[in-house]
């Protein structure tokens, strides 16, 4: 059903200063880098990727009037995540085939059609989303631990330096490096799981 413009606006307004609005901002901050990287990975230049990204998020924002709290299970946040995933994956597929889609119903389809699990586009999206999730969790954990602890983790786990070498570099004991690394890994795990639950 097409809603009147004023209904659309009022739906946008409903988000203002509410928890939904917070959800929207949170959603953007997580998904913008994901979509940007996906578009760049698909060969779009910086300016083009930014433009398309803006269009896609506008589409999501405009589809807010399709969100019916009484019918949809789960949170507004979860719904946003679902709709964005569908739209972006379907957009990438359509782009690949260079097909022209017209009409509101097609947008509706793009927002709602669940992409198949085995697709390259789906795999790419989920991989990028997971990457963003890890980066977000890492950012959170980094702020929670002491700088030396984080450094020890980064050296050994991400860069791949041996604990002994990292210990020398950071002026720590190798045992302290091991504990630091494991502590961060454990925290990261817990944080990722926690974020997954709320995303």
């Amino acid at each position: 059903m097409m809603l009147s413009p004023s209904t659309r606006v009022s739906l946008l307004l409903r988000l203002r200063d509410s928890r939904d609005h917070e959800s929207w901002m949170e959603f953007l901050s997580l998904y913008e880098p994901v979509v940007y990287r996906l578009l760049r990975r698909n060969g779009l230049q910086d300016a083009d990727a930014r433009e398309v990204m803006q269009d896609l998020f506008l589409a999501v924002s405009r589809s807010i009037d399709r969100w019916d709290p009484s019918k949809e299970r789960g949170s507004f946040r979860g719904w946003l995540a679902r709709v964005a995933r569908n739209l972006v994956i379907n957009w990438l597929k359509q782009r690949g085939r260079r097909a022209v889609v017209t009409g509101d119903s097609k947008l509706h389809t793009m927002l709602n059609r669940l992409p198949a699990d085995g697709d390259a586009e789906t795999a790419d999206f989920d991989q990028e989303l997971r990457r963003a999730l890890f980066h977000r969790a890492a950012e959170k954990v980094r702020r929670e631990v002491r700088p030396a602890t984080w450094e020890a983790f980064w050296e050994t786990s991400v860069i791949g330096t041996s604990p002994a070498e990292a210990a020398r570099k950071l002026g720590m004991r190798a045992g302290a490096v091991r504990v630091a690394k494991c502590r961060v890994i454990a925290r990261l795990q817990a944080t990722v799981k926690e974020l997954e639950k709320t995303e």
Partner: protein
Amino acid sequence: MNSRCSVERLQSALAGNLPEDEETSLHGHLEECQECSALLEDMAGCGTWCQETASLLVDDELDEVIASHDDGPAGDFAADFAVEHLEPADEPTVLGRLGGYDVLEVLGRGGMGVVLKAFDRDLKRCVAIKTLAPHLAQSSLAKKRFAREAQAAAAVVHPHVLAIHQVQPGGRLPFLVMPLVAGESLAQRLAACGMLDLKEVLRIGMQAAAGLAAAHEQGLVHRDVKPANILLEKGVERAVLTDFGLARAADDVALTRWGIIAGTPQYMSPEQARGEPLDGRSDLFSLGCVLYETATGVSPFRTDSVMATLRRLVDEAPQPIASLNPELPQWFIRIVDRLLEKDPARRFGSASEVSELLEGCLAHLQQPRNVPLPATLGKSAARRAHSVRRFKVPLTVTALLGIGLLAAFLAAPPPDISGEWMGDEWAKSC
């Protein structure tokens, strides 16, 4: 495993709960005890997590590409663009050839198009070529729209609209050819100067509105009036509008394909932000944004996010102009406020009306003693007047008015002119 090892102790270490001395002794112990080290890693989930964590957190090739191209040298893009979209040229100074033009450099690029500097061999002159953005050129619908809008725009011949020499609708990359303007865009001028003085604001506004009026007469809505699309010619006091209707080429594709809009939300009208059908009054709103920004140095609806901008456009009033630049007269503020009315019916009726009004205001500003403010300002103000003080201190006003304005004042129909023009608000503004 020796007596100093315990799962509980390792667990506390992971959680960061060990007392400092115990933590220190554990560090020493781990250096000797392989078993405890392995157990600790196991408990932390390193087996399954370490590899994924490392691969996801480390910068990959894409990060490097993004980092290297972000605002990087235009040369990379120019080279890629030339290879992909231009025919090769022999001369080393020429990037490539496009439809008979020698492309010399990439002047600019955005989401909707690429602007090239090129040389027209036949006419021995430099021109600006605007192509449809490569990602849009993949769609035949976008190509058609681009060609149609460019041809419509080419029909608008006006001193304040950038001429279109030629439209090349076919080929892999449709493009149009325009004069190369020596000068800068209003956006560039604002970036350098912050804000302009009122005379400049009025002049640019008047000329832009005149250009819009010419296009509106042909049924063409610009849809993307913004400082970047107003060019200020060097040496002469002339502003020209560019990119007529081109926003639409991308916009329609976006709309029909995805139900979404393109363009710069910052200067969009509320009806445009809602995706409603537009007429020329939408451009007037955008012009209002431009005047606001040109006179205050602040874009009225700028925010950090697209969504917040849309929401502000649709239902929030911008920060009062007077608070940003207290020197601006009330009549100017009222003109901008009226252009920025959310409801198109409450804005001015046409771009030509706005252009004439601004012209009259400019004349008044240049010769305040001899030229009165346009009388129509009174009408509009009176119609909309909210907190208007009517019929107050006529003597003071008369003293300030000067004879010319008084004449216009008397000639105008009394009910219309009886608004705030007579209040001390007005007197203050002069």
